[in-house]
């Protein structure tokens, strides 16, 4: 009898627990779904509010807003081409420099560096990632700009400026400021992000895969290139796009070293402008509706540009995966 009673209570307890579990699970699912949907809602909110705020500029200037370099705050004529161009060019320079360097850092730390060095260098990278961007900007302006102006730009003018096709990119006044300088400062800022992601994912490659390759007589480069990279490709590209996203949206550091002028120039040594820098510089004193609207429209365009770049990356990744499947 007592055994029977215990069994009943036990099953009741079980049932209660099961019900409580189900309830907790439902709540948990709701909370997690809420968190997931929050991202979408925030995204849609940003897109819609910037589109709404910029609608006056977009409807006034139409498609010309994208193709005009005019930025006449007195005559109220605005075009976004110069900042869009500056944003893309500086981010591209940043990635061209940052990706190989980050790859080298990550490869060295995971494959070659002695064990005692790995932790301090990894910690240093993470510290670099935590430095506020205005510090990079000030370093850029007070330390790097004079070096660019006095040493690097004259050298580039003399040695690279006459080369066929790429020459015009490297001909310009020795200001020290400009798109190349901004790109280099951005590269230094995104290297910690890209390299720490790369390092993390390189560590996930199973040792037996690498050791098998070594056993077959591969060199370190071959192991990294043919085993580690294919294994981690998706995550590596993800890391690169994390860095790209940061480079596209960076504001303070770029404002310090870019020169902030609405002019389109082929030379990377000329000053330019970026979307984020334009907004940061001019929003406070945007004294007419159309001026303010143009700045918000710029914010919307930055959103669109980032979206296009990320979508292109996704497509490229899918293409790669498909090719991988056929071979």
């Amino acid at each position, binding site marked *: 009898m007592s055994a029977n009673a215990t069994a009943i209570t036990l099953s009741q307890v079980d049932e209660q627990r099961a019900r409580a579990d189900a309830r907790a699970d439902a709540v948990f699912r709701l909370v997690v779904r809420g968190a997931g949907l929050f991202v979408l809602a925030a995204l849609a909110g940003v897109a819609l509010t910037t589109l709404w705020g910029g609608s006056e500029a977009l409807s006034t200037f139409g498609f010309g807003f994208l193709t005009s370099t005019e930025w006449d705050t007195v005559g109220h004529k605005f075009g976004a081409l110069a900042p869009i161009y500056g944003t893309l060019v500086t981010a591209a320079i940043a990635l061209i420099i940052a990706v190989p360097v980050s790859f080298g850092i990550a490869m060295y730390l995971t494959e070659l560096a002695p064990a005692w060095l790995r932790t301090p260098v990894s910690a240093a990278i993470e510290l670099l990632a935590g430095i506020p961007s205005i510090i990079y900007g000030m370093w850029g302006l007070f330390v790097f700009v004079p070096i660019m*102006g006095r040493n690097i730009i004259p050298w580039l003018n003399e040695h690279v400026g006459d080369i066929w096709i790429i020459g015009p990119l490297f001909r310009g006044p020795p200001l020290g400021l400009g798109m190349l300088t901004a790109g280099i400062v951005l590269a230094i800022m995104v290297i910690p992000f890209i390299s720490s992601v790369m390092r993390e994912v390189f560590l996930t490659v199973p040792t037996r895969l690498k050791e098998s390759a070594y056993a077959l007589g591969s060199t370190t480069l071959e192991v990294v290139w043919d085993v580690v990279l294919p294994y981690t490709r998706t995550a590596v590209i993800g890391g690169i796009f994390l860095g790209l996203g940061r480079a596209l949206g960076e504001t303070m550091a770029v404002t310090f070293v870019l020169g902030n002028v609405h002019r389109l120039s082929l030379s990377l040594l000329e000053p330019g402008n970026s979307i984020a820098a334009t907004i940061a510089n001019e929003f406070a004193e945007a004294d007419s509706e159309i001026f303010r609207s143009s700045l918000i429209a710029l914010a919307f365009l930055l959103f669109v540009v980032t979206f296009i770049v990320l979508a292109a990356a996704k497509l490229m990744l899918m293409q790669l995966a498909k090719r991988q499947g056929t071979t």
Partner: protein
Amino acid sequence: MLTCIRHTLTALAIGATLFASNAFAVDITGAGSTFVQPIITKWSATYAEKAGSHINYGGGGSGAGIAQIKAATVDFGASDKPLTTEELSAAGLGQFPIVIGGVVPVVNVEGIKAGDLKLTGALLGDIYLGKVKKWNDPAIASANAGAKLPDLAIQVVSRSDGSGTTFNFTNYLSKVNADWKSKVGEGTSVQWPAGVGGKGNAGVAAYVQQINGAIGYVELAYALQNKMAFTKMENAAGKTVSPNLASFAAAASHADWKSAKDFNLVMTNAPGDESWPITATAFALVYKTPKDAAKSKELLSFFKWAYTEGGKQAEALDYVPLPKELATQIESYWKAEIKL
């Protein structure tokens, strides 16, 4: 629980006594021009010690100041650019100048020290238009007989952010250079035909110091603090003047305030032999029929105090207090226009 209540009661009692002893002290908020932010902050600290009232000034830029006073989210706004009488009456606002300052051209050319170089307004305009490209250009050389000017490209530096400094500078160039007026115009930010843009006075100062052959424009305080090579200017009377508090004061007293309705006057290119041509002020904006008369009264007594007693502090920060006649004119403007 009981102790908790007792604590609350004590706190309330203390609060009540504090409130009673400060019955006339009010908190006043303002926003706008960053040009006057350092001096208003300084004045308000001293005034709070003396009168107990706190003037909280938020800066944020002239555009923000005008928008906020129109929305009545602040008790006063400050703008570098005066509003017209129509704009003022449409919003029910009154306007008066706060303090005088000046904008000075600064250069970075080897061998040129502060005060070595002299520029005219037309020449400065041509430089900023990109028409005069080299430091040894005949136009600069003829204005500076005997000066050793290098064969060096001029790098023009402007403000990338909208600012009252830019407004006064471009307003001056529009008055003295017809080409500038038709091609660029005046505003808190304009479409610069040449050069690079630095953020804030500090940004312009840093760019000029970093770039060989650069010319920029900053408020006097920044030129002095950074020991930069400022230039002399030829003023409206054709005389050469140096930028200093005396030449700013001369411009302020020679400017034709008497016939400026609602003080709608930009003082650049002022007459007078000693006047610095790029002298500037910022304008306070207040409601003519304020909702809270006590606050407005206190605000005006703050400004009155600043006009009479705040001169030393203004000069310490490289501003110039308003001339006496102007301060008197402002007080009669208050009496006539602002209903308290």
